[in-house]
Each structure stands twice: as structure tokens, then as C-alpha cells.
């Protein structure tokens, strides 16, 4: 009986150690990237929507310079969960658009999902029926991007775009819902 006890004790030690190692390896990427545990990256919109149990609202208009489908979809677990849909340029050079939205309650994207950038100019604009903040920002690499943020029902949207402001506003207005295009 004592022998079986020792056998089980060693078994539990090894299996417990293995489970702890797996759990630690699961948490490590979030720790290293400064993300919340449970944050995930999806390759397709349908996978992200299936995990969230909600449809993502995305612009129906995109400038010709952007490629489709998105390169990746990141999800911060929340609450409320916040998603970031990354779209690259058609020439594949770099990322040009990030569409962030909170699901179920208005919330700004966490810092790891949409890194804060130096603000150069801040103005109010209209996106359909909603007042939105348009901020001109400077990336560490010297590029100028624009952040457009507004709240629409239970979602808060933030679009970061490297390109013409007119295109950004047109994409925002094509998001649908209660927005008048």
C-alpha cells in the first residue's frame, strides 16, 4: 500500500509539474508583449467572431491601396473584450489600418493593442450621427497617422490609419449600424 502511495505521489508531482509548465508557457507571450492573459491572435474574422460570440463591425469601404482580408485580428479578453483588426497595404510594405472596437460596453483599446503615440493635433469631427475625436499622431519612425475615435451604442471604435484623412473618414462612415454614410 505504501508503495502504491509513493507511486501515486510521484505521478501527481510529474503530471502537476507538466500542467504548471504548460500553463506558464501559455501565459508567457501575454507577459512578454504586455498583453492581458487570454489575449489571442486570430487569422480569420470568422475565427475571432466565433470566439467572441459577436459580429465585428467593419468598414464596407476601403481605399484601393489596402489589401483584404486582414493580416491578423487581436482580441483583448476584457471585460469588455476589445478587438483590433490589422490591415496591410496592398504592396505588402507595412500595416496601414487598425480597426479597434470594444464589444458590449464602450472602452478604449488597451495600450498593448493600440500603442499610444505622440499627439500633434486634436479636432472634433462628425461620423454619421456621432461626434468623434480625430487626433493627428507621430510614430517613433517619423510617420504621421490619424486616430479617429467615437462611441456608437455599446461599442467604442478607434481607427488608426496611415493615409489621407478623407479616406479615414469615408471608412468610418461606411461602418454601418446607425451611422449615415
Amino acid at each position, binding site marked *: 500500500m505504501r508503495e502504491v502511495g509513493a*507511486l501515486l505521489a510521484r505521478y501527481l508531482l510529474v503530471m502537476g509539474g507538466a500542467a504548471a509548465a504548460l500553463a506558464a508557457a501559455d501565459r508567457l*507571450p501575454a507577459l512578454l508583449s504586455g498583453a492581458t492573459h487570454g489575449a489571442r491572435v486570430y487569422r480569420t474574422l470568422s475565427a475571432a467572431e466565433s470566439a467572441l460570440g459577436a459580429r465585428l463591425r467593419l468598414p464596407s469601404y476601403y481605399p484601393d491601396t489596402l489589401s483584404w482580408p486582414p493580416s491578423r485580428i487581436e482580441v483583448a479578453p476584457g471585460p469588455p473584450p476589445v478587438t483590433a483588426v490589422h490591415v496591410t497595404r496592398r504592396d505588402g510594405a507595412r500595416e496601414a489600418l487598425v480597426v479597434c472596437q470594444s464589444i458590449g460596453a464602450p472602452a478604449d483599446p488597451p495600450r498593448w493593442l493600440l500603442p499610444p503615440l505622440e499627439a500633434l493635433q486634436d479636432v472634433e469631427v462628425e461620423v454619421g450621427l456621432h461626434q468623434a475625436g480625430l487626433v493627428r499622431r507621430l510614430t517613433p519612425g517619423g510617420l504621421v497617422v490619424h486616430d479617429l475615435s467615437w462611441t456608437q451604442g455599446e461599442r467604442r471604435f478607434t481607427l488608426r490609419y496611415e493615409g489621407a484623412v478623407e479616406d479615414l473618414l469615408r471608412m468610418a462612415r461606411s461602418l454601418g449600424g446607425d451611422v449615415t454614410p
Partner: protein
Amino acid sequence: MATLVVEALLRAWRVNDPAWRLRFRLVPVAVPILLVPSFFVLAPWRTGARFASSSALFAGERWNLLRVGPAGAGDLVLVLAAGLGAWLFLRDALPPLVDRLRQGPAAAAGAWLAPPALRVVVERQARRLALPPPAIRVVASRWPAFFAEGHAPGELVVSPPALEALSPPELDAAVAHELAHLRYGDPRWGYALIAVRAVNFFNPALHWAARAVVDEIERRADQAVVEAGHAPDALASAIVKLFDRSHPESAASGPLLERLARRVRRVGVERRRERLVTAPPSRLSHGWLRLALVACGLTTMLYFVV
């Protein structure tokens, strides 16, 4: 993970009975060919994004949060692992295939006659192990070849450099070792393992697990030789001689991975030699209980790994 868990349990439980070690080692090999497809059929929800985000103990895709250039770290590791797996498979599977193609049908049919002295040794050892004597095939090779093929009575394949390298007691022990493989039907295990590895060529962990199974098969045959009354020293010395002549240091001056692979195998041969000349293995108690615990534990744990 399954291979690591089994390795840790073999050490924690101090399992040194070769037959039981082999059974435990087969569990990680069974994972990709039995467990993973079963999960796909019986628990399809595991592959869904919801399971990964809410229930998984480990989700590989979470590593894509870290970016390496345009790629996620998780995807990159998968691609690199697949490359490593393919290399491990090809470096084991290609040389014998190329040898066979180069030698042609004459060598495959046995171009050389077996020396009468070898025939006497084989018949003596077969009587000792109560086996029918196998056929002997001498292949023309500049490298030492000494292995068994088929199932009892089977076939003993040797090359002249191997026969020249071994002293009479070493030859006795080496023949007994190969006959033990035939008695256990080990060549068939070898073919099955190659087939499993070919199907999972992209999985480096499986190649590692399969290599561990091969080591245990060798260990079991070594033990059978010692139990048949041969001097462990003679077998140990034969193993070291054959390895060193078939993997000369000068031939391993190529790529780093090749040199590393030779060093790892050389360490394995040295461990095998040490095992032979130290104390014999002890019997394992509650073997089936332990095996059931390993299988159940791994099934449960791996269910939550996606």
C-alpha cells in the same frame, strides 16, 4: 510534452525493466497517431476558437501575440519545427534508401557467401535461444553493417568490415543480440516506426519519441543477451566498436547539426555500454497500473492543449 512526461516518470519511478520501458515509450508515439485523430473525431469543439480562448491549458496560437517581423512567433515556431522534423526524418530514412538503390538487386539478393565460421556461430546462438537459425546475407559495404531483418527465422545482414572488427566473443554476443531482435519481432517494429514517422515527418517530437522506442528495443535485446549467459563486456565492446567504425569522427566534420547528432548518438552508445556492465534491471511492480495512469493522465492533459 508527452515524451517529456514519460521521460520524467521513467526517472521518477526508476523504471529499468526494458520490456516495461518499451511499453511506456510507445505511449508518446501513440499520441499523434491515435489520440490526436480521436480528439478530432470525438471532441471537434476543441478546434474551435472558443475552446482555445476559454478552456485550453495551452493554446499555441497565443504565441502569435509576439511578432517576429511579419509573422507570429507561434506560426514561426511551427514552421521551424516542421523543418527540423523533416530533416530528422530524411537523415534517417534517405541513407538506407540510397544505399539500397546504389547496391542494386545483386546485393539485395546476397552477392557474397556467408563465411562458414559465421554460420557456425549463428547456428550455435540460435540453439541457445531456442530459435530456428536465420538466413545470412553478406552485403558489400565499406561500412560495418550488422542487423536483423524479417521475423524468426528472419535474416541476419552483415558486411565484411563488421566481421573483421569483432573478436570471437564479441561476434557471439552481437549475433545473440540480433537473434533476440528476431525473437521479439523487432524488425517489424522498425518498419512500423518508419511508417509512423513518414506520416508525421513534420513532427520533431515524434521522431524523438520514436528514437527513444528504438533505444528501448535495443535495451531489451541487450538484456536478452545477458540473460542468455553472455558476458556483458563482450556485447558492450561490440556495440562501441560497430558504432565508432560506422560513424567515424572524421566523417562528422560536416554541418553542425550532423556533428551534434553524432555526439548525441555516441553518448547514447556510452550509456548503453554502462548499463550493460552495471547491475541487472529489477522487476517493475504495478506495471499495468502505472501504464494506465500515464495513458489517462496524458489523454486528460493533452485534451486541453490546442
